[in-house]
Each structure stands twice: as C-alpha cells, then as structure tokens.
C-alpha cells in the first residue's frame, strides 16, 4: 500500500483530500505546514508527497528544494498544488524537480486523484 504525505494548510482541503485518497486505498499522512512536512517526510519516507505551495513558514518551493537536497527524500515523487498560475511559477517548480505541477483552480478532485495514480504507477 503506497504511502502519501499530504501537505496542505487548509483544514477542510486536508480532510477532503485525505478521505478521497483513503478511498483509493492509499495510506495517508498529513502535515499542515512546511516544517512539519519536512520532518514527516524524513521520518515516514512516503512514496509520494502532495504539496501545497502557499503555506505559512516555509513555502512549497522551499520545501521541495530541501527535499531534493536531502538524501532520504531525493527520489520521493512530488506533486505540487498551487493557486499560482503564472508560467514562471511552473518553471520554478520544474527547475526544482517537481514531478507534476497542478493549478488548483483548473483541476478537480478527481484530476488530483488521477495524477496521484499516474505518479504511483497504479
């Protein structure tokens, strides 16, 4: 059973995504900010991280940067979810080594689930 770390500061969205991923039989662990995300990622070693960009303390971009330079999480798959639709933001994410970049306003819950399935090769 693949393990997903969901990093999302909005409580509601965290619950929604958790429930939806759980329905697909994934093991879901959550974090509500960047610091917690980094600690959890190193401790739990998830197969995939679904990462919100706009978060208090450490932004998603910084989290990704640190993940990629940390040996334990270097290979972990990361899907970024953001409200930022500027092309430069996408480029920034891609240059930091994101596996998939999703813009919140343009995708539905099901699209996120599909993206997760695709990344985990299910």
């Amino acid at each position, binding site marked *: 059973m693949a393990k997903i770390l969901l990093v999302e500061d*909005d409580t*509601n*969205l965290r619950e*929604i*995504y958790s*429930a*939806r991923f*759980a*329905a*697909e039989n994934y093991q879901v662990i959550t974090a509500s900010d960047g610091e917690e995300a980094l600690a959890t990622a190193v401790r739990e070693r998830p197969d995939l991280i679904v990462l919100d960009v706009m978060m208090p303390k450490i932004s998603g971009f910084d989290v990704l940067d640190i993940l990629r330079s940390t040996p334990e999480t270097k290979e972990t798959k990361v899907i970024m979810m953001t*409200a930022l*639709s*500027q*092309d430069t933001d*996408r480029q920034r994410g891609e240059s930091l080594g994101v596996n998939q970049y*999703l*813009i*919140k*306003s*343009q*995708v*539905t*819950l*099901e*699209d996120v689930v*599909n993206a997760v399935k695709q990344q985990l090769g299910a």
Partner: protein
Amino acid sequence: MVEQRQRSLTLLARLQAAIGGLIMVTIFTLYGLKPSLLGDASSTMAAAIMGALGLIYFLTFHQVIGRRRLAFSTLILTVITALNFILVIAITGGLDSPYYSLWLLAIVAAGIFGTVETVVILSATIVYYAYELIIEGLHAPFIMDHLVQLAITILAAGLAEWVHVRSRRVAAQTNKLATLSGKLTEEQLKAQALMSSIGEGVVVVDMDGQIMLFNRAAQQLTGWDEASAQNIAYNLVLQLHTADDKDITADTDPFRQAWTEKQAVVRDDLVMTTRSGRKIQLALSVSPITDNDDTPTGAIGLFRDISHEKAVERQKDEFVSTASHEMRTPVAAIEGYIALAMNANVATVDDRALKYLEKAHEAIQHLGELFRDLLNVTKAEEGKLSAKLEPVNVGELLRSAVEDMQFVAQKKGLTLVLQTSDSIGKAIAPIYYVGANGERLREVVMNLIDNAIKYTAQGGIKVGMSGDNKEVKVSVIDSGVGIAAEDIPHLFQKFYRIDNSATRTIGGTGLGLYLCRQMIELFNGRIWVESKPNQGSSFNFSLPRLSEEEVRRLQQAAAAPAIDTTVATPGNVVQPTTEAGPALSPQQPIAMPIPAEQAENPHQRYRIR
C-alpha cells in the same frame, strides 16, 4: 484712408467756396471800378451770381448735407464751380482765356470723386472744343493753336485719374488689411481663450520637436511656464516614461509614432515626471498635423493626469482579485465535500440525496467558474497576463475540441460535426497555422461549442474551418434559438447577459464571450456573430494565417526563452496555463449524467457564460 478722402473732400469744398467767393468779389469790384473792362454784362453777372451761389451753398446746404454725405454735397458744389468756371472762361475769351487753367484744376479735382466724374467733365470739355471749333469755323490755325491745349487737358485728366485710382486702390487694400488684422487678432484671442479654458494639457510641436504652443493646463500639469517651454524640445518638458519606469525610446515615442504612422496615437500607460520631480500617470493622445500634401508639419498632443483614475481602478481590481481569491477557498472546500459525499467509496447517501448533491455540485462548480472568470478578467484588464505566441495547427485543435465535446452533445441528442474545407470548398483537411496560445485558443473553441450546445434544443452543431493565404476562419454554427438583433452588438461585452426567462433561470457570468473576444484580439484576430432568431447562430473568429517561414521562426523562438507579448493595454488577456480540460468542460468526471428533465428543457441550458 477713408479719413484722408474726407479731408481732401473738405479741402476741395472749402477751396471751391473760396474760388466762388473770389470770383464774385473780383467781378463786383471790377464792375464798381470800371464796368467797361468786362465784356458781356449779363454773362459777367451770371458768373458773379454763380460764384455767390457756390459760396452760399458752401455756407448753408453743404454744412447740413455735407455732414452726412460729404462726397455728394461736394459734387454739387463742384458742378456749381464748374459752371462758374465755364462762365468765367467764356467771358474772358473762351479757349484762349487765361482762366482756362482753372478748368484744368477742376478736371484734376474731379478725380477725387471717381472715374465717372472725370469722364463727364472731360467729355464736356471735348464737346466745348467741338462747339468752339464749329463757331470759329474749321480753319487750320485754330486747330493748331488749341490741339496742344486739348492734349494737355486730356493728359491732366488722365494723370489725375491715375493718381486717384491708385490712391483709392491702396486705400481699399489698406482697409482690407486692417479688417483682416482685426479679425486675426480676434481669432487669436478666441483661440487663446479656448486653449486656456481646455482642462486638458495641449502642446503643439513643430517637426523639430520644438514646442510652439503650450496651454495653461499643460503648464499646470508639467510645472513649466509657457515662456520657458516655448521653443524647447517637447521631450525635455514632457518627460515620459513607461509604466515600468523605462525611458521612452525613438520607437515608442508617441510623437514620432504619430508622424511615422500618420495617425493619432493614444496612450494611457505613460508616466510623466513634472518639473518638480513628481510623477503622474498620464493619458496622452498625439495627432499629427499635416499640410495639404499629407506631409506632417507638426503634432498636437493632448494629455491629462489620470493618477486618480488609475488608483481607483487598481483598488477595484485588487478588491475583485482578493475577493475572488478568498472566496475560492471555501468554494473549493464545499465542492470537495460534495464530491466526497457523492463518491460511493467514501460515503453512502440515498438516491434522493445524491440527486440533490449533484445539483449542489453543479451550482458550486458554476460559482467556481465565476470566480475564475472574474480573476481572468481582472488580470486581463491589468495587462498582467502574457501570451506566448506559438504556431497552432487550427485543424488539429478543432478536431480534438470537437472530440472532447462529443459526449456532451450526444447526451443532449445533438450532432456535433467538424467540417473543414479550403477556399474552393473541397472537403479536405488543410493545414492552417496561426500564431496563438494553443490552450487559450482551445478554451475559446470549447466555450463557443459549449454555448452552442446549451442554446440548441434539437438539430446539431457544425464546426467549420476555412481559410486563404491571409487568414483562417473558424465557425461554430448551431440550429438553436438564435439571438435577437438588438442583443448582438452587446454580446461580447463584459457582464452582458441576454435578459430572458432562459438566462434568468440558469446562471452565467456574462464573461465567457468577453474573454473569448479578449483572447482572439490578443492573437490579432476578430470575433463576430451572425444570427437569426429561431434559425440558429453562427459564432465566427478569424486569425491571421502564419506562413511556413513564420511557423519555423516561432517554433525556434518557442524553443528559446518565451517571447513576452505583454503590451500594457487593456486588451491583453491570457494567462500561461495548462488549462486542464475539466475545469472548462462541463463534463466532470465525478458528475453523473444530467437528469433527463434538465437536459430536455433547452431554456434551462441556455446561458451565456
């Protein structure tokens, strides 16, 4: 000049009165001393009486009539004097009289009145010569004696007339000039009053770029007074920058642009540094001034401070942007929870609850669309969105869009077909490339097809493409309810929604077609609609076709860093996104098929997004 004529007339009248008086006094004196000196007594007396008459006329009637009609009165006096002269000359020996010189004076004086008078008096003289000639008998010595006299007389008349005609012409011209200069001054004053009362800054420059005119508002806006600004290069006085504080270059200088393009240039995105160093946002329009040959001779610039308007606009945009952003979070939560509730793997609800949830889901999705469109419009109007122009294969794009929408059309029992043809009408699929943003253009097509499906109860939708070397035209033709003629001009306006029972029941943002237009115009195309109520509508757009060379160039450019076509105009739309189909497509993966009673009621599906 008029006064000079008045003066000469007055002088002439006085002179004649004096001559008349002199003749009268002389005759009476001579008569008193030695009556034998005078020949024919009756003629002499007549001459004396005529002299007296002239003097009396001058002292009485002339004083009254002459005040109003000086020339006329003087003419009468001259006639009296002339008669007097004739009498005096006749008394003293006709043409041989020494007083004949007086007659020459009269001829010269006649010139003051005009050509007619000169001709009359000269004719009278010639007639008199003829008369004398007949009386004296036609013999050679007389003719010889008087021929020179006559010649001098005619010459004098001619000379006098020439002098007077000339002086009258000069007078007339001077008069005209005086009137013109008066008018000119008046016009100048009017123009000045107009210029200074205009609330906008007005600057007129010549071809060297030197300021010729600088009105009061311009002085207030720039902080330069007229005297300092006069004859100085305009770009020293109007220190313009772009909105991002870059200097205006020769290419972007609105004055130069007006000259090279020979048409008015309108900008509302400029910043001007005033003389005191303050920066104000400027709306500027520059029109070239041309002569009859259409060669520019200068330019006129009108400008005003729009800092306040810009600030208000920014606040409004920020508010809309923040509000839509903030509201999107709870909307996403609601949408997500409803989706969870409807998902059989997560929750269990009964069929009736599921039906309600579907409706709630549809409504909340529409709300999400509204916020997204609002944000797009705000961004578009801020000129924030940029578009990477890339070669887009229109046929390919239409094929995939039609394929994606097929399901929605079939669900409503409509046919959706793609028809492509070239200019000859052959049903082939020619390859047309246009410069656009593929995802944005796809969005436009999907939006048009989506609308067509919603507006059509039965029949089908045809998506057509045609083109020539210059442009590619795409049409989405439906067999739906059509659009009333009065709605057509407003269809592509922001927030415009056709007001009828159909649009009131189904929500729409009134932004969909507005955004379509913004995008098509960003790609240098145009969009229009043809429709007849109850016969269907045809939404069309055309885009400039790219040549193979341009396609190659753009492909190379796309491989290199993005070409930013952001021009800070309100016409800019488009954000670089990977618009995933689902957000636009009504075909939501999680949504159940639309309940039959909804799908069958075309009015409920009728909306302009």
